[in-house]
């Protein structure tokens, strides 16, 4: 854990605190003016290319001056401009400086178009240099690093081959460019670097150089195919465009030099191979450029998919999957900063992964998300940053939503608890009244009656006690009604339907109640519904006019208990009428059990008060 902490800290320092994805995205979308480096490098490349075109078109010994001018300009401009674009998109990539260097190193090749003997000879030697830099570029794609034994052997062989060319130039009295379309018309300029003639040595070195080129091409093709075959999805994606073009270039090169070795140094095949080399070499940089553009299109697609995925409210354990598939990295892991250190979506602590690259998303000047990803994705740091930031947002969203839902659930259950507790208290109060004061006073009344029986009927005491009994009975009745208002005993004894039928029974025919199939429910729900119906009946008999008929209907449908109090009275406009506190209290009481109450009425159309409570 502590090790990971340190690793994240150092990664954050390297990428800079300003490396947060949001700032990155802002920087990418802003137009950045040409930097000094870009102006100088680009200017040098354009100047070099212009000189190449001018010199080549002026040379009168060349077979294809026009095509050669294009090729020489492209050798400089192609890599340099691709490199500058690459550098803008991936400022930390090592491949961009390599591209720029290769382009600038191609400038001296222009000397091959010069008729000045020493310059012409240097230009011929420079073919070896261009061969070397092109091979280095192909081998370094796309990371910019030149690691591994095969890479070193190929480059070493290339250096030896370039050495051979230097020797050839020194021992061959007459030299001609070995390039494809750089042949001379009748004769080439004089060899300015000629020392002394040794034609057999020159012939052997030419063949040796051809062997090196063929072997190097085959080894490099094998290496590229191997890289592609063992590559992870992100690596394959990075190699997908650049590698086929490079392989095609290497194949044409091997075929051309191979055909020279077996003595097939003229004819249609020879000419075709020469032109194929020229074309495919020019395509190599544009293959790299296409790779970069494809990567940006890919990044756009990836982010769009991640954004769409995040709309589906992924849960915390699903966040990794949300990034894995779009990024094509099945082993991607996420770590979020929490009070308990770095944890994954399931809350487990995350440890460092040695074979993965760590990208840290910084927020408010401190690391917030760590993404462990395929090393190849390190080329797309901005993409990984943005994806990590999306994961962070989705996580915060999920956490907020969970907290909100918890709070709502807690609120709802606490309301139901409070309502149930209040109801239990009402029932206890009613029981206390019934078992206490009412019984005691009834017993007193009976005692009084028994005492009165002992007195002479017409006596003053007898009359007084009759009055006393009547007073006591009236007090008892008030007490009974009070208890009934707090919690009606019939509700506890016979449930909603029984209690409402009693209400109907007392009405003298104005109210009817029905509730087939309605059973017993928790007391708090029964009393909430009972009092709603009672309030509705009282409202109707108060406001609906004389001779109104009121019906109470209860129904149990699925997990819902529904009730409806309907009258055929004068009705009213619910929007204009003030809802009494009685009805509002009942609405609140129903709300506590997730129930609802609706009032439908219109002048002259009667009134329906209907409600439903879940009882599942």
């Amino acid at each position: 854990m502590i090790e990971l902490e340190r690793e994240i800290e150092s990664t954050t320092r390297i990428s800079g605190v300003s490396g947060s994805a949001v700032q990155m995205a802002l920087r990418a979308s802003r137009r950045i003016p040409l930097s000094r480096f870009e102006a100088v490098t680009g200017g040098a490349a354009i100047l070099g290319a212009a000189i190449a075109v001018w010199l080549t078109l002026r040379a009168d010994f060349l077979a294809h001056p026009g095509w050669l001018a294009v090729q020489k300009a492209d050798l400089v401009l192609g890599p340099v401009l691709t490199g500058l674009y690459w550098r803008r998109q991936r400022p930390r990539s090592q491949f961009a400086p390599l591209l720029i260097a290769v382009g600038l190193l191609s400038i001296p090749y222009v000397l091959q178009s010069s008729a000045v003997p020493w310059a012409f000879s240097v230009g011929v030697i420079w073919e070896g240099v261009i061969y070397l830099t092109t091979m280095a570029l192909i081998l370094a794609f796309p990371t910019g690093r030149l690691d591994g034994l095969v890479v070193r052997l190929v480059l070493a062989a290339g250096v030896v081959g370039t050495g051979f060319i230097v020797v050839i130039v020194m021992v061959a009295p007459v030299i001609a460019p070995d390039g494809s379309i750089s042949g001379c018309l009748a004769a080439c300029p004089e060899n300015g670097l000629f020392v002394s003639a040794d034609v057999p040595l020159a012939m052997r070195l030419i063949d040796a150089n051809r062997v090196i080129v063929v072997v190097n091409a085959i080894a490099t093709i094998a290496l590229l195919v191997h890289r592609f075959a063992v590559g992870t999805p992100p690596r394959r994606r990075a190699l997908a465009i650049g590698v086929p073009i490079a392989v095609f270039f290497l194949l044409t090169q091997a075929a051309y030099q191979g055909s020279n070795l077996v003595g097939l140094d003229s004819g249609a095949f020879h000419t075709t191979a020469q032109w194929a080399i020229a074309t495919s070499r020019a395509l190599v940089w544009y293959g790299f450029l296409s790779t970069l553009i494809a990567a940006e299109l890919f990044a756009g697609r990836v982010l769009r998919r991640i954004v769409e995925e995040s709309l589906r409210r992924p849960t915390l354990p699903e966040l990794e999957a949300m990034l894995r598939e779009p990024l094509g990295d099945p082993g991607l892991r996420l770590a979020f900063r929490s009070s308990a250190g770095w944890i994954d979506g399931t809350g487990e602590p995350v440890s460092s992964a040695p074979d993965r690259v760590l990208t840290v998303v910084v927020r408010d000047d401190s690391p917030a998300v760590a993404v462990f990803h395929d090393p190849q994705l390190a080329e797309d740091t901005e993409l990984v940053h943005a994806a990590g930031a999306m994961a962070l947002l989705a996580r915060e969203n999920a956490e907020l939503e969970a907290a909100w839902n918890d709070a709502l659930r807690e609120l709802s259950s606490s309301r139901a608890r409070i309502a149930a507790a209040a109801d239990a208290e009402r029932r206890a109060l009613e029981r206390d009244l019934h078992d206490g004061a009412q019984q005691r006073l009834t017993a007193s009344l009976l005692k009084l009656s028994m005492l009165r029986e002992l007195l002479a009927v017409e006596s003053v005491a007898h009359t007084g006690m009759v009055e006393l009994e009547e007073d006591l009975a009236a007090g008892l009745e008030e007490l009974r009604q009070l208890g009934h208002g707090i919690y009606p005993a019939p509700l506890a004894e016979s449930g909603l339907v029984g209690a409402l039928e009693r209400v109907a029974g007392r009405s003298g025919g104005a109210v009817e109640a029905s509730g087939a199939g309605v059973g017993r429910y928790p007391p708090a729900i029964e009393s909430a519904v009972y009092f709603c119906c009672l309030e509705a009946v009282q409202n109707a008999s108060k406001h609906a006019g004389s001779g109104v008929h009121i019906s109470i209907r209860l129904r149990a449908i699925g997990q819902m208990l529904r009730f409806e109090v309907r009258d055929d009275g004068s009705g009213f406009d619910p929007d204009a009428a003030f809802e009494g506190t009685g009805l509002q209290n009942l609405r609140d009481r129903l709300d506590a059990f997730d129930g609802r109450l609706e009032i439908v009425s219109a002048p002259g159309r009667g009134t329906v008060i209907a409600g439903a409570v879940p009882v599942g």
Partner: protein
Amino acid sequence: MDDIALFREVASELVRRRGYSVAGEAHSAAAAVEAAERLRPDAVLLDLRLPDGNGIDVSTVLTRAHPGLAVLLTSVDRNSPSDEVIRASGAQGFVFKACLAATDFSRYWPAPGDA
């Protein structure tokens, strides 16, 4: 049978005054069924609300177990169960507790001394 001791006392006094003898008292539905089995009374005064049940059910049990037992239901509440419910429970009738002193028990029970 009534769960309130004070009321049981007064009610016993009242029925004694009306010429009946009190065989026993019970404070709950279970105790009522047990006492009826043990004491074999001719008549019972039964509260509708008991701590462990209601008078209607107890009346049903008692009249089934002891055919001919005269059960009179009573309550501190004025509201009487419907006639059908009373009949179905085997009881003879219902009297509001506050009116017990004015009640002619012979309408519901056998006359005192008949048993």
